[in-house]
């Protein structure tokens, strides 16, 4: 502790789990927006990641409310936000934003996209698996050309609705923070927009990593056109995200409200590592430079001509750095906003507990859970259409 703080500011109320929540929803929104690139904007190169993006968004969306439930306690009461909706509270409307996105957008889009396959798998499978697929089709087993055209058209429209919905989902999370007018670190109309673009960055980076790893572990050749395109969009999203963050920062500096001094102290002391080192340098500047130099999407062949193998490693490292940077953004917003006193005269400290319902172990568990769900989803609804997996790795050369 340093300087003067009010008694109720000594202990932070929003813990590591509340850092995790916007991080997870950001990945959901980002992964979905990536999927919509192929579906709505017809970017054919990223087609290999379309279904993977949808399943990734679904897996992370299923876990997204769990940090909130663990943080608030009494998960058995959570259904009450549906029964007695409080329209005056943005937080209380989360259930509806979430339910809309899950049921009307993601599940429907996955369903329309997989319906034909599920019908075929139900016909080919035996035993329980056959019934699972049959139940998942809801009995709609018509796969005539007309019916499939309807699936395609419906899926496209849902994606069109889904893009503003994804904006709503993550913009909503930014809105929660941006609308807290008593906190100068949060209160900014740019907050929902910044959240949105950082969500796109994190979602694209995550799908890029997942696409590379799943392709490698299936002993398949990575589609470099797809990877280059992903890297190109990742670069664009990162540029916009960084510009918005810089705009927000410069705006605060120029405005120089009375909070500027304590925010300066906050950045120079408590948030130096997580903001300057991790978020700006590691999570933004290094990936920006790396992607700008090697991405062939920006200049034919890239500013530095690199063999595909090296480019893959650079993309992978850049995407992992970006994930660390985006997690740091969430940390800097959520924890940073509680580290300084509303008196603007003091700073407190936050120590992460290891065990316990809001501890590090719980956070790691909730961070790994989407990957377990994704693994189950991938087993149930394989997102790739390149035939059965070979038993052995292909011979090199």
């Amino acid at each position: 502790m340093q300087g003067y703080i009010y008694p109720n500011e000594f202990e932070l109320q929003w813990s590591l789990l509340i850092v995790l929540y916007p991080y997870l929803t950001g990945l959901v929104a980002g992964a979905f927006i990536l999927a919509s690139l192929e579906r709505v904007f017809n970017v054919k190169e990223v087609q290999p990641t379309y279904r993977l993006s949808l399943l990734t968004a679904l897996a992370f969306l299923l876990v997204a409310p769990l940090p909130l439930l663990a943080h608030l306690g009494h998960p058995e009461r959570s259904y009450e936000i549906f029964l007695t909706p409080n329209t005056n509270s943005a937080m209380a409307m989360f259930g509806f934003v979430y339910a809309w996105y899950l049921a009307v957008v993601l599940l429907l889009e996955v369903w329309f996209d997989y319906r034909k396959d599920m019908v075929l798998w139900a016909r080919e499978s035996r035993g329980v698996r056959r019934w699972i697929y049959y139940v998942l089709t809801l009995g709609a087993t018509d796969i005539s050309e007309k019916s499939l055209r309807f699936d395609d058209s419906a899926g496209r429209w849902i994606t069109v609705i889904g893009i503003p919905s994804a904006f709503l989902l993550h913009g909503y999370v930014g809105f929660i923070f941006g609308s807290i007018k008593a906190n100068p670190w949060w209160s900014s109309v740019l907050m929902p927009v910044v959240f949105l673009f950082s969500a796109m960055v994190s979602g694209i980076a995550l799908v890029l990593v997942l696409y590379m790893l799943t392709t490698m572990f299936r002993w398949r050749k990575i589609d470099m056109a797809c990877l280059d395109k992903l890297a190109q969009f990742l670069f664009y999203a990162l540029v916009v995200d960084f510009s918005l963050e810089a705009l927000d920062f410069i705006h605060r500096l120029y405005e120089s409200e009375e909070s500027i001094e304590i925010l300066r102290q906050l950045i120079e002391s408590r948030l130096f590592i997580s903001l300057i080192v991790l978020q700006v340098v590691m999570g933004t500047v290094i990936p920006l430079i790396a992607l700008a130099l090697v991405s062939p999407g920006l200049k034919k062949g890239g500013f530095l001509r690199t063999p595909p193998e090296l480019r893959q490693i650079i993309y992978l490292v850049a995407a992992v750095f970006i994930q660390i940077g985006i997690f740091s953004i969430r940390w800097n917003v959520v924890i940073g906003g509680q580290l300084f006193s509303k008196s603007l005269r003091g700073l407190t400290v936050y120590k992460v507990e290891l065990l316990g319902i809001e501890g590090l172990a719980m956070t790691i568990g909730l961070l790994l859970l989407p990957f377990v769900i994704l693994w189950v989803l991938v087993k149930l609804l394989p997102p790739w259409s390149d035939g059965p997996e070979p038993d052995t790795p292909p011979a090199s050369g």
Partner: protein
Amino acid sequence: MPQQVPRLAAVFAVAVIGLFVARSLLVPDTFGDLGHYRAAAIDTIVAHPKEYAGHQECTMCHRPIAEQRAASNHRGVRCEVCHGPAAAHVANPLEIKPAVPRERDLCVLCHAYSPSRPTGFPQIDSVTHNPRMPCAGCHEPHAPEPPVTPRECSACHGQIANQLAVSHHAELNCGTCHEAPKEHRDNPRAVRPTKPAERSFCGTCHAADARSSERIPRIDLRSHGQPYVCWQCHYPHYPEAR
């Protein structure tokens, strides 16, 4: 109509109807009558048995103590804050007695050191401040008086004063051990205050035959640490002995 439409419509209809059925079954009747809560909750709360009597009731029988407290630093701390709810005691004064707290964990609710408390508020570190001793053994809770460091000392020696305040020697004033000539305030470096020069000075409380409280640690002055003066080994503003 494509086969998918009625199937999906049925699923969504089940979900929406389920929501409305759940609402009709689970939302209490009086919810929303007065605000975003169950209005009947007020009646439920009113029906709770009364447990607190209020300090006016205490004053009627315990006037001397109430007056002592009303004039003390604890004038804002009402009787039932420490003694617990006393409605039952008021109803049956002879058979039901309120709690007389002796545990240290009650006082530290307000007096444990916390960086967010005002610095002038009396605070202690309960781990080092006379461990296991009940607070009321030294401090009269109805008229507590915090140990006072002379303002003229703490103005310059604030760090020592703060450390002393949380030590076993908290109740000793600076003047107990030091004689500070008036000139020391005008010319602090040229005119120094005294320090105890004899071992027997600390022995007043700590010698084996000293006539002081039994809780104070004792030593044999003839054999312990000769030929040093006590403060050459023990820091008297924060003595380590328990």
